[in-house]
């Protein structure tokens, strides 16, 4: 399988007519406020370096104004960078010609938007096949593929509806089906579920995880919600004022927040769901018959321990061989003690 990872290197974005003039000053430590006050330019992104893994979900998280939406738009160059590189399969997207960029967008990427951005004058099916229609697919073939994906996202029977006849959740399913119909290697999701009700959001997250298990796309997912980031992200990068403040797996971030800003964030997180048994296990076997698979969450482990009435358990790898043990005390300890900074 081809490597579909994306390397973002030294990416800068300064909004304004002469952004390139101020890169050096920003590198030398000029702050966002100072740049705006003195030169009337807005610092969007500052020296971003993210290596997005192939066939995994990379989450970029940040509050509004942190530059996360600016960041994702550099991957398909909806926004021109001021300087830096975005490398995909050895090619710098920032240096592509107009024609190459158009083909790259058509064939390699698909995007889902926060406000759905469906075409109001087209029916659900015509929206879904928009991407491949642009590529020049025949109508029959396009319709067949679109129907397949509409069915996968649970919208069978809604083909002839118009977007504004559907609820928000259903509209975003159309958005997702439109992106999937493109069959692109990179799937970009810009706060795709942020506008939905909590229950529908959970539902959509499950659909995405389910689909990803078989599709193995490189997904770049933008969110402002840490719970969502932890649930979906194989890797998470946290942005603040246009800078990456920390990146790593969800567990790494929850266990070792880089600064006070992030520890504030992770305080509210349900640690039992994020932290894996592997983190708290000791080399000593639990000396019991209860076996818990490596990679289980603490919450699951605690439930198994309590159900079985045991105080300790063995942690076993995929082949069933024991690799360590956990006690109920260590499990609960890790769940209730937040990391401080």
């Amino acid at each position, binding site marked *: 399988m081809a490597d579909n990872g994306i390397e973002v290197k030294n990416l800068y974005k300064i909004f304004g007519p002469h952004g390139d003039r101020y890169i050096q000053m920003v590198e030398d430590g000029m702050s966002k406020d100072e740049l705006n006050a003195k030169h009337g330019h807005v610092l969007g992104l500052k020296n971003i370096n993210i290596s997005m893994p192939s066939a995994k979900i990379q989450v970029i998280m940040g509050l509004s104004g942190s530059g996360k939406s600016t960041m994702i738009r550099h991957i398909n160059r*909806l926004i021109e960078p001021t300087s830096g590189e975005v490398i995909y399969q050895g090619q710098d997207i920032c240096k592509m010609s107009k024609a190459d960029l158009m083909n790259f967008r058509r064939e390699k990427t698909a995007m889902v938007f926060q406000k759905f951005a469906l075409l109001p*004058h087209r029916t659900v099916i015509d929206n879904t096949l928009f991407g491949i229609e642009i590529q020049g697919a025949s109508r029959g073939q396009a319709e067949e593929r679109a129907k397949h994906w509409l069915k996968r996202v649970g919208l069978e029977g809604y083909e002839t509806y118009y977007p504004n006849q559907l609820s928000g959740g259903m509209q975003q399913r159309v958005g997702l089906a439109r992106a999937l119909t493109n069959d692109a290697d990179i799937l970009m999701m810009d706060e795709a579920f942020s506008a939905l009700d909590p229950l529908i959001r959970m539902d959509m997250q499950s659909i995405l995880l389910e689909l990803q298990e078989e599709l193995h796309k490189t997904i770049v997912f933008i969110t402002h919600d840490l719970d969502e980031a932890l649930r979906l992200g194989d890797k998470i990068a946290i942005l603040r004022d246009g800078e990456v403040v920390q990146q790593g797996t969800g567990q790494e971030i929850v266990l070792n927040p880089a600064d006070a800003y992030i520890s504030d964030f992770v305080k509210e997180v349900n640690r039992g769901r994020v932290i894996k048994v592997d983190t708290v296990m000791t080399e000593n076997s639990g000396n019991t018959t209860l076996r818990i698979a490596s990679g289980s969450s603490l919450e699951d482990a605690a439930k198994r321990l309590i159900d079985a009435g045991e105080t300790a358990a063995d942690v076993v790898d995929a082949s069933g061989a024991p690799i360590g043990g956990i006690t109920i005390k260590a499990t609960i300890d890790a769940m209730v003690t937040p990391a401080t900074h």
Partner: protein
Amino acid sequence: MSLKEMLPDVLAEFPKMGRADLRDFKKGIDETFRVFTRENGEAIENFFYPLKMFMVWFEKLLLATPWPLMIVVLCLLVWLGARSITMVIMTAVALFLIGYLGMWDDTMRTLALVSVSTFVCIAIGIPVGILMAKSDRTQAVIVPILDIMQTIPAFVYLIPVLMLLGIGKVPGLIAVCIYAIPPVVRLTDLGIRLVDKDVLEAADAFGASPTQKMFKVQLPLALPNLFAGVNQTIMMALAMVVVASLIGAHGLGSQVLKAVNNQYLTLGMMNGLAIVAIAIVFDRVSQKFGKRLQKHSETIHG
């Protein structure tokens, strides 16, 4: 002593161009234009010849069609546009009354003029509107021209048109088009510019070319405004038929003109009301048609 008398001459009297200079200035421009007309008149006439032939052919076609067939055809068009039986009946009644009161032929001439000029306005106006929407610079150039076209008294541009093409159908058509084209241009431009930025970004993200974006996204979403523009253009074309009759566009307009010249009250009223009847039919049909194109915005999820 008044204030004017206390001031030096320069401030009391407006510094005017010398009378002789002014006369020469006007004469010079007039003469230049006359020379231009003499030299290019034929070429310009030839340029408009196909349009003239088309107008003549269309007018003859309308006049040669037997009246019952014409009423059926028009009612059918109204049905296709508006899908309203009330509209169809009203159209039939209006046309029958017009014919019964002896205005059938003039109505057909006016119908021909308005149809052809609307067609010309759309054919030129929509592409110009698209160009305007694509570039701010083009817009900055065209907007003042449209302002002039809409505000300059019609009689003023009748003069050069008359000098170039003489009296006849084409000059009438041009006069109507100059007056009626601005709305369709303006509203095409506006409609395209008002298209939701998020939707345009989505089209970009999926790799749409500028042409695909225009025809698959921008124009379809600009249709409600575009149709409002077409509707206004038709209305303004109808409003111009009387003025156009001054330079030889026959039809209901020339009857109104005759009535004004001879103080024929009833003749004026009848022909004026016939114009109103046609206007109402055109207006309602084009509005209903524009609305039907928007069926996607009718039902909204509660």
